[in-house]
């Protein structure tokens, strides 16, 4: 459905995007992760035909975006960064304009506008100038515009930015509902969003793909993967020493967070230690408030991958 082939973009001496390739089949929601300035938006701008790549290209529904921009653009719905829309228009006029440009007139335009307005819930602001709308409504108008023609490929640059938690939940539900019949790319800073909606995540930094896999696969690379959180008071040093002596335990660290005090027990790579920990706690009769195996944290992986200037080859996961 969407194939990105060796995209490169230079801005003067700066390599904003440095040889990015991936494909997104129908039914996939690809999360595009990376720190600010990593090249996420630039990549999206090239896929949608706004920027011409320095080299490489994107194939959208079988059309090369450089060679056949019009048919390629027809099957893309795009929410640009910051959800720009004409400030002096009302959402009704704006969507009408988009419908006409997309080739729908009369009752067909009305039907399609009605459908997205319903879906994105912007009925109550339909006749207010866009410049007077809240950030959340502006974002939703931008998404409505991208969905109007029911595109096969949907590219959303930070679709939930500026939305409140309820609106975020709604937006994720909408994205998940559309997933089966579309190829979707969303860029985001929110790692919980990746876990909530994405079937696959790509982490990029400095214009390169550093990791590519399902959110679960990426989380496995976290040091918290299979770590055991043991809810005991950390004051007693003997507890830590006992835990450290268990087979397969690499480190024990005290943590204190919203859930209270606990010890985080990190296993050596590829080992699970939860049964040993449980047995030990029972044997010593510790007052355990809770015991949980961590799945791993995307934010760990994200920070580790994007802050260490590592060779991409050595950290790239098998996609």
């Amino acid at each position, binding site marked *: 459905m969407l194939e990105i082939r060796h995209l490169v973009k230079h*801005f003067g001496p700066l390599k904003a995007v440095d040889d990015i390739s991936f494909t997104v089949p129908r039914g996939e929601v690809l999360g595009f992760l990376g720190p600010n300035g990593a090249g996420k938006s630039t990549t999206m701008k090239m896929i949608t035909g706004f920027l011409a790549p320095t080299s490489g290209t994107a194939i959208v529904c079988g059309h090369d975006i450089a060679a056949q921009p019009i048919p390629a653009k027809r099957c893309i719905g*795009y929410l*640009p960064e910051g959800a*720009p829309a004409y400030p002096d228009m009302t959402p009704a006029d704006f969507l009408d*304009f988009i419908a006409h440009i*997309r080739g729908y007139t009369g009752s067909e335009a009305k039907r399609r506008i009605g459908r997205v307005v319903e879906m994105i819930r912007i009925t109550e602001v339909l006749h207010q100038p866009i410049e007077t709308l809240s950030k959340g409504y502006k974002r939703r108008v*931008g998404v409505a515009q991208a969905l109007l023609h029911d595109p096969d490929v949907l590219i959303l640059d930070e679709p939930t930015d500026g939305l409140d938690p309820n609106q975020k939940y709604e937006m994720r539900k909408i994205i998940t509902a559309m997933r089966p019949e579309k190829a979707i790319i969303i860029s985001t800073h929110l790692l919980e969003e990746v876990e909530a909606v994405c079937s696959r995540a790509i982490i990029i930094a400095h214009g390169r793909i550093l990791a590519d896999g399902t959110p679960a696969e990426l989380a496995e690379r976290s040091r918290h993967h299979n770590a055991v959180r043991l809810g005991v008071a950390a004051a007693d040093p003997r507890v830590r020493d006992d835990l450290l002596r268990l087979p397969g335990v690499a480190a024990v660290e005290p943590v204190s967070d919203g859930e209270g005090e606990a010890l985080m027990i990190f296993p050596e790579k590829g080992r699970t230690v939860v049964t040993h920990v449980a047995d030990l706690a029972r044997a010593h009769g510790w007052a355990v408030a809770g015991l949980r195996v961590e799945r791993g944290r995307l934010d760990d992986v994200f920070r580790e991958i994007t802050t260490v200037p590592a060779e991409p080859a050595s950290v790239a996961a098998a996609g």
Partner: protein
Amino acid sequence: MHNISTIFRRELASYFATPLAYVFIVIFLVMAGVLTFFVGNFFERGQADLQSFFTFHPWLYLVLIPALSMRLWAEERKSGTIELFLTLPIRMTEAVIGKFLAAWCFAGIALALTFPFWITVNFLGRPDNGVILASYLGSWLMAGALLAIGACVSATTKNQVIAFVVTAALAFLFTVAGSSIVLGMLQGWAPEWLIRATTQMSFLGHFGAITRGVIDLRDVFYFLSIMIAFLGANAILVDLEKAE
């Protein structure tokens, strides 16, 4: 064609969505009136024509047309809507032409609203309405040429003030190209053909010829070719500069 008309309608409506359209039209009419009656001595001349009305159009346009053209692309770039606009399934030429036609049509509306001058002169005497019609056409063509220059300049910046100032400066050069101001700068060093070509570029010269009532196809062709050249450059510049 469908896309051009869709873009045209959106752009034209956007002039009227803000006070810009009304401010522009009112100021245009008031200034045209003041210049015609007080500076142009419309009544004292005692002639049944609109010469004193049309004479001032080039100078009026020098200030007002850049105000109309400055937002065409600069505003889209500033607000980021250019990214939305140019990722829609439209051709660059459709975008450029749709926007330009909206601005040109707006200028035409402003020009048409000067009809009370025409009524006045017909009430007072028997003017040659053919000449007046030709002058209107010439004035509209000149406005179109200036708008094309302005659209092209607007495509190079996000800043509408810069677009205004640069357009006004270019418009001034084109307007007075045949006068001693510009020719004086060229004389003495420029080759003969360049001086002759520059003289030919003058808006005043071509507009003046039309207002005398002779629609020479060469004058019409001149304004049309200025429009085509600058709109072509406009399309290329939008493409080149949009990354920034």
